[in-house]
């Protein structure tokens, strides 16, 4: 049996014997389709690198991210300090490495808050239809037609600066997109026979939504979340840049760029180095999201 699991024939079998075999087979097909897309693989590599760097930060960073040597302040990039040092003599590369943790923390938390929220609202809206749909979608549309960054700024202003509040503010402005997608997806199968069958077996609305509707909306939501990651990273960095996100001395990339602004004309590396990190990580999520969309949701290809 264990021999079988690793074989291609077992994975690609037309009539799987167990549910697990079917799932693994599906996963295998997906992975193979993704592998054929080199750009998506580059994206995946960048994301894996971000995860590794964040996990291994204390071992990878050559210096402390928080303590510097004032005699070494504002040193240009050299063999000892690959990205130079900042105004407090801290090693910029070490700070960028530790900053990966903050970025990862922010994007994961936003995804964990906003995606399920939007998914639930969209699924409920599409499943029930009628006035529930109309009310929920009006609220969604109001949020959708507002400038997201400005809204996030205003929310942070109200909640006070800090990473957690930045996460909440970004999540508040992100969920409507997922609600729209989940609703559109739900509408395509809400009158399908398997839903009617579940209803006739006496399943409650909550059960049908949770077990039958939401799983079917998952793939398009996941694609969209991956594509949105870059935007979330940029917004978070923007809040940090304005001094509303992570507070000093935390090595958040946007906040580091903001500190480096004061020396931009003479010590350009202080502000530009963290920016490269932002660009590379955002690019990774963009490329991987594009590839994922082509595999999971071929319909969405032409739309954006």
């Amino acid at each position, binding site marked *: 049996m264990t021999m079988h699991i690793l074989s291609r024939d077992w994975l690609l079998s037309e009539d799987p014997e167990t549910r697990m075999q079917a799932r693994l087979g599906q996963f295998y097909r997906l992975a193979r389709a993704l592998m054929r897309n080199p750009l998506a693989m580059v994206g995946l590599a960048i994301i894996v690198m971000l995860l590794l760097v964040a996990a291994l930060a204390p071992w990878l960073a050559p210096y402390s991210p928080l303590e510097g040597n004032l005699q070494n302040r504002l040193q240009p990039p050299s063999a000892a300090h690959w990205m130079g040092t900042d105004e407090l003599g801290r090693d910029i590369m070490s700070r960028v490495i530790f900053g990966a943790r903050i970025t990862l923390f922010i994007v994961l938390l936003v995804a964990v808050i906003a995606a399920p929220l939007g998914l639930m609202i969209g699924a409920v809206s599409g499943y029930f239809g009628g006035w529930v749909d109309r009310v929920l979608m009006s609220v969604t549309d109001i949020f959708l037609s507002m400038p997201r*960054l*400005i809204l996030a700024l205003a*929310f942070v202003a109200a909640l006070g600066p800090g990473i957690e509040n930045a996460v909440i503010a970004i999540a508040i402005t992100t969920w409507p997109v997922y609600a729209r997608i989940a609703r559109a997806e739900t509408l395509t199968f809400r009158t399908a026979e398997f839903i009617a069958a579940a209803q006739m077996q006496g399943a409650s609305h909550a059960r049908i939504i949770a077990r039958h509707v939401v799983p079917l909306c998952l793939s398009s939501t996941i694609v969209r979340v991956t594509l949105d990651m870059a935007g979330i990273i940029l917004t978070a960095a*923007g809040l940090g840049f304005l001094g509303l996100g992570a507070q000093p001395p935390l090595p958040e990339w946007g906040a580091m760029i903001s500190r*480096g602004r004061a020396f*931009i*004309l003479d010590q350009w590396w202080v502000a530009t180095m963290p*920016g490269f990190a932002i*660009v590379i990580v955002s690019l990774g999520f963009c490329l991987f999201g594009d590839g994922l969309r082509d595999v999971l949701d071929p319909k969405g290809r032409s739309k954006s």
Partner: protein
Amino acid sequence: MAQAIRLFGPLAARLLPIVWLLLVVALTFLGLLAITFVIGRVVPIDPVLAVVGDRASRETYEAARLAMGLDDPLLVQFVRYVIEVAQGNLGRSVSTGRPVIEDLARVFPATLEMATIGIIIGVVIGVPMGVMAAARQGTWIDQIIRVLALAGYAIPAFWLGLVGLVIFYAKFRLVGGPGRIDIFMDGMVPVRTGLLLIDSLIAGDMRAFRSAWSHVVLPATILGFFSLAYIARMTRSFMLEQLSQEYIITARVKGAPERVIIWRHAFRPIRVQLITVIGLSYAGLLEGSVMIETVFSWPGIGNYLTTALLNADMNAVLGATLVIGAVFITINKGSDLLYRLMDPRARA
């Protein structure tokens, strides 16, 4: 639709979607007001304390609270808030000491000037690029658009602004630095429209015009870059859709020159769709200017907003949010309306 024609007649049936859209717009504005109202109320700063000071006695505090109407039901307070805003009363800014609405009227033209030049750059370069990419699919210009689109998604605008300052201002002295005009000419041009480029032309001051131009060109180009990436990508996909239609094959078979096929047959039908895209990215530019203005110390609404944020000047924050939000919604829905009026396919 058929039922609507029977009930209201053909003209009314055509107007009905527009009336509906206007209703949606009104609702959206109300939603925006509701959001700023909620934000204004959950702020941990006590509005009464801000007025009476923290040494006021309990009675004075209570009296002020009553006078400000803060013990009324929330709905009553909200209605009062909406009426105030409708009358143009956005409160007084703590940091400038002037009514917020006056401040906003003063700073808005600067943002408008920069965003307008940005969108012109985006349209003038982006649209032809998108058309060319669709006409020659898979060639270098097509690849450039893919790279630009990715760059538009992945590069933070504020960082690109800083890098631009280092390269074009500090290293090569090709453009002016931060601010709207060279410091020694600041305030010398009489204000007519608030748009410095036009004001200096009216005054006939070419030196001021050149200075203002050298200051606006970099931030506007960076803003324009982000709209260019989006506009070119959308133009390309609209054009591809048209070029795959059968009437294009007919035109080709008929022997029409390629230039005519592309610009007359394929480009014409997408003009209306493009207006929506351009409208959306114009609105996006007004928003994007918040970051760019901070980087370039551009005295516009974005800079006003971020300064107010750091000073916890809540009236100014909410006022700027309201104005940017309102402009955003108006452009957004306005281009939607224009699309419905001009495109016969959207009317059906």
